[in-house]
């Protein structure tokens, strides 16, 4: 089974990939259907480098880069961007700092020029640092009474203790308060360099133009002081089941997460797990979980599952937002479905439906420049190969119900789950 016009999907002959002499990797694909261009990318300067007493340092640094450079101050940067109707932003996750931007194609040099300055020549003006700090602290205050965020944080901490995956990239109020302006400049000096930079450009520009413009903006960047990547602690699967409830005052709904470790992106388990996940809690009105929790029991407006696969680990979880009085009933229903999921294989019909969905949806996900950018970032980040989207239908179709079951059993151990809820106080005994 191939999608309609599968040859129009990105492939070796229309994706340009080149590595510059300073290590920067560029991927580019043209799209002349709209006079705009999207850029995105990352480099290895993420929260994996955060000291424990300065959690949030990588993110704070990334967000401060555009607050003033050696060439332009804050107002000049934003005046030039906003006058062009363009956008550019940066932020940190665990391994990487990611960036993204968009402009009309004639403003691509502006965008790349600003990106280059932000990455290479930030000056961290003290007034801007303090202003940004106040904004970050306000965000943390809002996070601190958001049931979804609180459940997510607790869940990650349980799954990945003593590891950057288990710590929030935006830190905590105390750690953000502790970070100084010099910490930011120091972090930048030690961790920002071209060697790990990946840049993707999609839009109304041909490959040679993209290459030339990147060469001008970033081709001569080097950082001899760059430090090596950290050695991260080993990861372990959950050793026992954990139940945690976070009481949050003044709320009307409880956020619930039930989950476990999942495959990392490079694992051969990924595709069978992904299709299993689709059946379990995504396909149609959110799969079996949506059917049982929302459609049949009416317990939740949102009930679904997700599979998140990172470089070194993964998460497989069920989430729902429920009335506090229905919390235990929702937990019981979900556990029942999980039991069924690892007891018997999914049906051929269920599997075929999800396979058809994956293959059919591929052209739709590549409709816009942003969609193509994300597709190219994915194949580079996880080293999937330039021909990945041409091979994709075969990878999807190779999964059988038996393979999906065998894979699900490797991850879902119902006696070793993390069950986290955040919302009004629990009244009953667990």
């Amino acid at each position, binding site marked *: 089974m191939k999608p*309609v*016009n599968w040859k*129009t999907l990105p492939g070796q002959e229309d994706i340009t990939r080149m590595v510059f002499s300073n290590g920067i990797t560029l991927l580019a694909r043209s799209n002349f*259907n*709209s006079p*705009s261009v999207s850029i995105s990318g990352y480099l290895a300067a993420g929260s994996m480098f955060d000291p424990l007493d300065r959690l949030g340092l990588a993110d704070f640094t990334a967000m401060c880069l555009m607050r003033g450079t050696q060439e332009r101050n804050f107002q000049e940067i*934003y005046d030039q*961007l*906003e*006058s*062009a*109707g*363009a*956008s550019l932003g940066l932020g940190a996750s665990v391994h990487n700092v990611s960036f993204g931007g*968009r402009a009309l194609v004639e403003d691509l040099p502006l965008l790349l020029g600003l990106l280059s300055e932000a990455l290479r020549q930030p000056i961290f003006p003290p007034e801007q640092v303090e*202003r940004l700090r*106040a904004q970050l602290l*306000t965000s943390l*205050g809002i996070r*601190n*009474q*958001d049931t979804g965020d*609180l459940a997510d944080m*607790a869940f990650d901490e349980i799954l990945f203790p003593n590891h950057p995956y288990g710590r929030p990239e935006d830190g*905590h109020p105390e750690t953000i308060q502790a970070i100084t302006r010099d910490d930011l400049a120091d972090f930048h000096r030690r961790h920002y360099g071209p060697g790990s930079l990946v840049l993707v450009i999609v839009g109304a520009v041909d490959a040679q133009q993209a290459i030339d413009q990147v060469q001008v903006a970033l081709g001569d960047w080097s950082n001899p002081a760059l430090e090596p990547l950290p050695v991260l602690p080993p990861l372990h699967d959950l050793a*026992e*089941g*954990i*139940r*945690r409830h976070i009481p*949050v*005052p*003044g709320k*009307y*709904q409880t956020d619930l997460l039930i989950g476990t470790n999942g495959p990392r992106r490079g694992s051969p388990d990924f595709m069978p797990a992904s299709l299993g996940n689709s059946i379990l809690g995504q*396909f*149609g*009105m959110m799969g079996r979980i949506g059917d049982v929790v929302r*459609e049949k029991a*009416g*317990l*939740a*407006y949102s009930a679904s599952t997700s599979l998140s696969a990172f470089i070194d680990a993964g998460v497989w979880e069920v989430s729902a*937002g429920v*009335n506090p009085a229905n919390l235990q009933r929702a*937990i019981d229903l979900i556990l029942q479905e999980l039991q069924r999921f690892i007891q018997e294989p999914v049906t051929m019909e269920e599997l075929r*439906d999800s396979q*058809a*969905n*994956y293959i059919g*949806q591929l*052209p*739709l996900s*590549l*409709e*816009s*420049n*942003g969609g193509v950018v994300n597709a190219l970032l994915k194949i580079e980040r996880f080293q999937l190969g330039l021909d990945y989207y041409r091979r994709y239908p075969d990878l999807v179709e190779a999964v059988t119900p038996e393979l999906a079951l065998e894979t699900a059993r490797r991850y879902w151990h*119902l006696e070793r789950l993390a*069950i986290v809820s955040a919302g009004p106080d629990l009244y009953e005994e667990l």
Partner: protein
Amino acid sequence: MDSVTKEQLPGGLTVHLKEIHTAPIISHWVWYWVGSRNEKPGATGLSHWVEHMQFKGTPIFPTSVLDKAIAREGGVWNAFTHLDWTTYYETLPADKIDLALRLEADRMFNSLFDPEEVEAERTVILSEREGGENEPLFRLGEAIQIAAFHTHPYGHEIIGYLEDLMRIQRDDLYRHYRSYYVPQNALIAVAGDFKTEDMLARLSKLYAEQEGGARSGARSRTLSDASLPQTGAAVAAKAGAEVIPAEPPAREEQYVEVSGPGETTFLQIAYRSPAASNPDFFGLTVLDSLLSGPTSINLFGGGGISNKTSRLYRALVERDLAVSVHGGMQATIDPFLYEVHITVHSQHKPQEVMKAFDDQVKRLQDERVSGQEIKRAIKQARALFAYGTESITNQASWLGFAEMFASYEWFTSYVERLAAITPDDVQRIAQTYLTPLNRVTGVYLPTGESVEEGSEEDEPDEAG
């Protein structure tokens, strides 16, 4: 703009078609002129609940088949209920589109509204509302809408009030569906990789087949007496049109206060603003670009840009009175609200923010903005529109969306109409609309209750 075909089918259904051959995709939208605007006190939330029930099956597409049908073909779909309209869309690979056409034609006429499904959906909608109530800004927004509209149905949230959601019965929903889900009250918009003659022929055939069970009656397009200066409400009502009571002019400035958990104070300033069909809508859009930054009105893919060079950002955020500010309007049939949202800095009080805000409004009223500033706002609008054209789904959405409150020409001439705005226009708009009498100011005051990090304890899970 590429050409658009507009037709009206014999049963009264309006059809807009636009061929786009850049990708093998088709996006199909059905729009109904019904939203929270059409709801009376005691029955708020009807339109949104009817939208939910549209996913609960017909005889040909029972609920278990419906929810999987589109996904199986690799499509994406969704639905939205808004103030003035309800819409259902599907985007599919071009060779699979017939499923969407059949599905929408079927559920326009044949949804079952099974009583058990109605009850199951009651708790789902209550859950959706509870999710909203968890958010300070939902509660603040609701309080402001209530204060801004005492008469007009825009005063209640689209999801409806809790009391009404507990009270509404199956027959209420079914009656609402049969009244508004009629071909004369619907518009179908399709954009993508098809041939116009073929698509038109297919739609004609499909809806002619359904017309066997069609309901009669004049088009139930609703009017408000504010838009009937000549004929008047009585005449319109006699002609069978539903008339929505207009909101009378405000007689005093209003304040609302909401409190709840957290540490952060939120301010929301809402001015009664012109309807989309009022020429002043464009002047106020330009004003807002200067005051709080440009807003994208695309339903999809337009995204936005930052607003750090806007007047309010410079006056509030760069002076450390606020940590963020955003503003915008919505395109509506009747006058709605121009809203500015401000997150107050933890070291300052809302009164200080209001003073600085009022200074910026006065500046717009007393001094004309420069032609240069307006030119900049136009360039921003052009860029945001260009981003929207990347997506066939977004282009398809505009074929129908603009017809809900004006016409497709409203969309095609949008940037040109903005470009015609002069500094004098902006000054007059500021003087006319940004008056204290014309606004509702809302503040969310935190009680300081918050979660102490690390306060929770783990328990080993014995559920197994």
